[in-house]
């Protein structure tokens, strides 16, 4: 992309094409011979990482679209069916959902790097602005993608975000109606979001081409911020940058795989495993972590229109960065004051993100306002001022000089920055949890689950006993509608044979029809049938249960959670603790107490439960000692029942969990070996250039 090239392929067939379409010359000059500054550090590999993530997102997205149904009544179910029934559907879905977060991790690193090293400065302003456009498109795409599973957070996120536009004076209401295609968020909204979610990534890819083009015209910036002058300052893109980028990508893949295989729900929200319900808003609406700083800014401003303006300005102000920071020295390496303010700015962004996940009350509001001020002050006061008053340190004459000087000094600021960023990521991610700190309830005690940890598997005995408890106790009120009888015989499940599952199914009466006469009829269940629900519809369930419909239990252990708080959620990332749901379910089953403590009032028709948020639960104590007989000699106590049925419900929530962990182990072994090989290859290649 840097002008016509004199490259000629040696193969005559390729020469023939080259004369008519000089595409090989273009590729050669852009990605092979292209001179890249020799002092680039690993922060520069994030461009390649981002391209990789865009490719992964498009690939997995196109595939998910083959199985997904964009309809308000079917979307949630179709996502569950992808995860449960499609071959490797769980993997593809995790890759896509986690991939979105990884994409944002990479883009934030990429952007902060650009700010730190002054990569937006002359002559790279257009390059930078194109990057901001990509970022905006990513945010729109990410938001619409989050709506598609049509869970509670999807629905209410869509409602809140589209309502931002209602702040526009006069036209606001009509614009929102236009966005919805109705009088509220509904099926037309979901359909158009699906369409646009499919379209936008290709627009992103298009702008990425422009971004790379602009990059190749202006040339890459580098950590020292001096333009390459001679041959000695650069190395050819291939193999040097290619191999280094690939090493960067393979390291990034380790992080990515950690989430895909071991913490797939860490970055998500438990509420999104509850199907969208237009009648109930979750107690805390929290956007995905990557929007949190802007969400905090929105909430800090007490005026609706001003809040929305502030939020959008916080992003758009980035476009003006090249003119707000007019300092001649590019790299913060040589700007002692700018460097410090940069790190303060990073901290401000992280803290804003943390606040975005907290309930908007008390100290959080005040802190949010202060940090919002700091955010804008960095752009509008600090940077313009620094450009005028700061005396930068002398910049090296050339990149080659800088490289030579560096080999002498041992300073590695990268380590500290890496730690800051790792902390930042964990803080961001975990702050979602802390936002949901269970109010008015005790923290569920932790249990030892057989399925916890990187190699955990389901205890078959517990699964079988849990199924019995479900069938004899829970099933009278709670459905299990995503589980088919055939699942009972599948690998990684309760370990029944196909014949046993068939026999189990035939005990059930399944409504089928219409027959040739047009009548519905009942027949014995078959393996392909799903567990029948105890009530024909939600209204009936509600009417029969004092106004509270008993939730379907298929996903209950993933749809319930409780706040872990700081710093637990950071530790959880490393310990792979993700059993909040099971702990909560087991605790609620055992949390009933006849004696209501002093000061707590339980309304008529409700029961006191120590662990239920608000303590008043509509479900009467379901389990008592000796209620279900076990034939394997396990104790018939409430504690054992609770543990068994929770294990069973963890399996119903994720039938392929064992496959996920098993494949994860294999992938990790491979990635570690591969990253090691890449590292040594990279070292070899670079050693030869010195």
């Amino acid at each position: 992309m840097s002008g016509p090239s004199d490259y000629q392929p040696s193969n005559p067939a390729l020469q023939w094409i080259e004369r008519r379409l000089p595409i090989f010359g273009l590729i050669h000059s852009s990605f092979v011979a292209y001179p890249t500054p020799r002092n680039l550090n690993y922060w520069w590999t994030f461009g390649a990482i981002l391209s990789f993530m865009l490719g992964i997102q498009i690939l997995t997205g196109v595939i998910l679209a083959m199985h997904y149904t964009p309809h308000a009544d079917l979307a949630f179910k179709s996502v569950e069916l992808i995860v449960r029934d499609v071959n490797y559907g769980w993997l593809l879905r995790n890759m896509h959902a986690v991939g979105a977060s990884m994409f944002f991790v990479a883009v934030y690193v990429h952007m902060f790097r650009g700010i730190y090293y002054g990569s937006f400065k002359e002559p790279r302003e257009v390059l930078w602005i194109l990057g901001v456009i990509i970022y905006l498109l990513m945010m729109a795409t990410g938001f619409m993608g989050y709506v598609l599973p049509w869970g509670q957070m999807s629905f209410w996120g869509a409602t809140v975000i589209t309502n931002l536009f209602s702040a526009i004076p006069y036209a606001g209401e009509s614009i929102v109606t236009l966005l919805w295609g109705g009088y509220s968020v509904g099926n037309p909204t979901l359909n158009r979001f699906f369409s646009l979610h499919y379209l936008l990534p290709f627009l992103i890819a298009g702008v990425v081409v422009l971004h790379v083009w602009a990059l190749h015209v202006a040339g890459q910036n580098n950590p020292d911020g001096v333009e390459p002058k001679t041959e000695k300052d650069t190395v050819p893109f291939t193999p040097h940058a290619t191999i280094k980028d690939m090493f960067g990508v393979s390291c990034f893949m380790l992080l990515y795989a950690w989430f895909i295989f071991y913490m797939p729900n860490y970055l998500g929200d438990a509420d999104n495993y509850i199907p969208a319900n237009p009648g109930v808003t979750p107690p805390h609406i929290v956007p995905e972590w990557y929007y949190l700083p802007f969400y905090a800014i929105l909430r800090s401003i007490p005026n609706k229109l001003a809040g929305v303006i502030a939020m959008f300005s916080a992003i758009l102000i980035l476009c003006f960065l090249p003119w707000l920071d007019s300092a001649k020295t590019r790299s913060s390496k040589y700007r002692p004051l700018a460097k410090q303010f940069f790190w303060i700015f990073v901290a401000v962004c992280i803290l804003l993100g943390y606040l975005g996940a907290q309930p908007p009350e008390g100290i959080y509001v005040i802190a949010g306002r202060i940090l919002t001020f700091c955010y804008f002050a960095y752009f509008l006061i600090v940077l313009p001022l620094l450009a005028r008053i700061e005396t930068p340190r002398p910049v090296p004459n050339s990149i080659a000089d800088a490289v030579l000087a560096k080999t002498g000094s041992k300073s590695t600021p990268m380590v500290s920055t890496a730690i800051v960023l790792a902390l930042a990521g964990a803080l961001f991610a975990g702050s979602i949890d802390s936002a949901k700190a269970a109010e008015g309830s005790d923290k569920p005690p932790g249990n030892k689950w057989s399925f916890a940890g990187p190699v955990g598997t389901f205890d078959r005995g517990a699964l079988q006993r849990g199924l019995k408890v479900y069938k004899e106790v829970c099933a009278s009120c709670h459905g299990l509608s995503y589980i088919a009888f055939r699942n009972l015989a599948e690998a990684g499940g309760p370990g029944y044979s196909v014949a046993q599952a068939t026999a189990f199914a035939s005990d059930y009466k399944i409504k089928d029809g219409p027959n040739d006469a047009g009548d519905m009829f009942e027949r014995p269940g078959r393996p392909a049938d799903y567990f029948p629900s105890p009530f024909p519809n939600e209204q009936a369930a509600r009417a029969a249960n004092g106004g509270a419909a008993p939730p379907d239990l298929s996903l209950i252990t993933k749809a319930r959670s409780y706040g872990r708080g700081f710093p637990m959620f950071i530790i959880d990332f490393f310990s792979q603790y993700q059993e909040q749901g099971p702990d909560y379910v087991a605790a609620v089953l055992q949390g009933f107490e006849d004696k209501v403590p002093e000061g707590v009032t339980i309304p008529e028709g409700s029961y006191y439960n120590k662990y239920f948020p608000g303590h008043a639960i509509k479900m009467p104590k379901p389990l008592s000692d000796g209620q279900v007989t076990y034939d394997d000699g396990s104790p018939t106590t409430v504690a054992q029942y609770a543990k068994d049925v929770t294990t069973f419900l963890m399996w119903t929530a994720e039938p392929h969990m064992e496959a996920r962990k098993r494949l994860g182990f294999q992938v990790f072994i491979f990635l570690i070996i591969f990253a090691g090989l890449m590292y040594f290859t990279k070292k070899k290649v670079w050693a030869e250039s010195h």
Partner: protein
Amino acid sequence: MTTASSADHPTRRDFLFVATGAAAAVGGAAALWPFISQMNPDAATIAAGAPIEVDLSPVAEGQDIKVFWRGKPIYISHRTKKQIDEARAVNVASLPDPQADDARVKSGHEQWLVVIGICTHLGCIPIAHEGNYDGFFCPCHGSQYDSSGRIRQGPAPANLPVPPYQFVSDTKIQIG
């Protein structure tokens, strides 16, 4: 670039490059599998393709019914004596896809012809009781099948396939 100086110390370095390249190739190929495998029928589709039972008692002689199994139309014809005789009378060797009628029905139940109603030419659904052979006629490109579902005339290369089935009782079959 990488090959230029390989003469200096070829073995160790080349081994490294080959190992890395091989690991990348193996990993890439393995990673491809889920993306291909997901195109196959999912578990629910496979489960829904389980055998079905069909009650034959309402089907009178000379009538036929169409049922669906795995999304495919299955013709079940209650053949008349005439149809059976015609099917048995032909010289099997003269047929484009030679197959005797008794190989296409269950012995003892010769009156029942069970075939997958998908034209072996390009997949249209032939119409029963039409054409010159007292069997099926495909309107798409004019293939004609006889009363045993064998191809007699037209572009289709093969007989209508017989799905796996058995008689559970005299009036009930299980397909699949």
